[in-house]
């Protein structure tokens, strides 16, 4: 691979933009990089678009050549709203599974480096915090854990509009019922609101903050790996 191409791939990854590296595997074969925005006008358009959707690398035969497509989608990211007790357990677990974790909470007494060593913290309201991060996207999960609608709701609205691959919200069925009413009033569709995992987490009977963190993380991974699952949970 040309060093220039490698640099470009690394730049695109840092900016959370998807690219596909097309490599002719034959001896002396060429190599080129295609951005998602340019894929539509590429000779391999249909194949490339499908690959951007699936995120899967693989070989494709085209015009008698064997081409390897390295699909580089942005690394999965978890934005946690709420620097709460559950988040203290969730952040290191999520980092251990290679999720890029950011915690948002405007309550500066909660969002302290002492409580969250080694985790990216933004002690801001969600709208301000999200403006500082790379935009929410299909490769981002958002878990709203504050129990405070002033903080959770704006983050949920942004996550649903950005089609985040996972959107979860803490709270009982009753709390969620009221949330559905508010989000409907805010202009979100039934389908969009229906994507919220609530009550949050897989039903493993979790009790402690750490156990709830496990159930949330498992649910995030289940969404991320949807296509590999044997049966719906």
């Amino acid at each position, binding site marked *: *691979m040309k*060093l220039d191409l490698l640099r470009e791939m*690394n730049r695109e990854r840092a900016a959370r933009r998807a690219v596909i590296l097309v490599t002719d595997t034959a001896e002396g074969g060429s190599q080129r990089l295609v951005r998602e925005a340019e894929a539509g006008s590429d000779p391999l358009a249909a194949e490339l678009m499908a690959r951007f959707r699936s995120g899967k*690398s693989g070989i494709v035969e085209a015009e008698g050549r064997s081409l390897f497509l390295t699909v580089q989608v942005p690394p999965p990211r978890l934005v946690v709203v709420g620097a709460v007790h559950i988040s203290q357990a969730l952040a290191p677990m999520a980092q251990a599974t290679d999720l890029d974790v950011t915690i948002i909470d405007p309550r500066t007494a909660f969002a302290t480096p002492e409580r969250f060593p080694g985790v990216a913290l933004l002690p801001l309201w969600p709208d301000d915090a999200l403006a500082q991060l790379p935009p929410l996207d299909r490769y981002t999960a958002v878990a709203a854990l504050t129990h405070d609608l002033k903080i959770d709701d704006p983050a949920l609205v942004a996550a649903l509009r950005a089609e985040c691959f996972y959107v979860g919200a803490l709270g009982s069925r009753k709390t969620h019922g009221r949330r559905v009413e508010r989000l409907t009033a805010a202009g979100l569709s039934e389908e969009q609101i229906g994507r919220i995992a609530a009550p949050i987490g897989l039903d493993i009977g979790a009790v402690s903050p750490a156990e709830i963190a496990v159930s949330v993380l498992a649910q995030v991974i289940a969404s991320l790996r949807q296509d590999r699952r044997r049966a719906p949970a």
Partner: protein
Amino acid sequence: MLSTDTDILATAEAWRDAGRGVALATVIETWGSAPRPVGSHLIIDEEGNFLGSVSGGCVEGAVIAEAADVIEDGRPRVLEFGVADETAWRVGLSCGGRIRVLVEPVA
């Protein structure tokens, strides 16, 4: 700490910037039960330092050895490993799968 694709490709760039010869190995095809998915990367420098993986550790040694030649002559090549391959007697995948690995210079 496990290395992610981000670390691996960023490290490949950093190694080149430090003037080291670097080869990039990528799993391009798998059959049966293979330990690492298609697209997985392993990078190797001219001294045999490496980061990432293309298998559960079964064939890394052979890939690293081949990478030295790739860095030396600058020619990419495709390697195949698996139980069906005669090299299975030396290196092979104990899980019974087969994989093809592209090893290319970063130049």
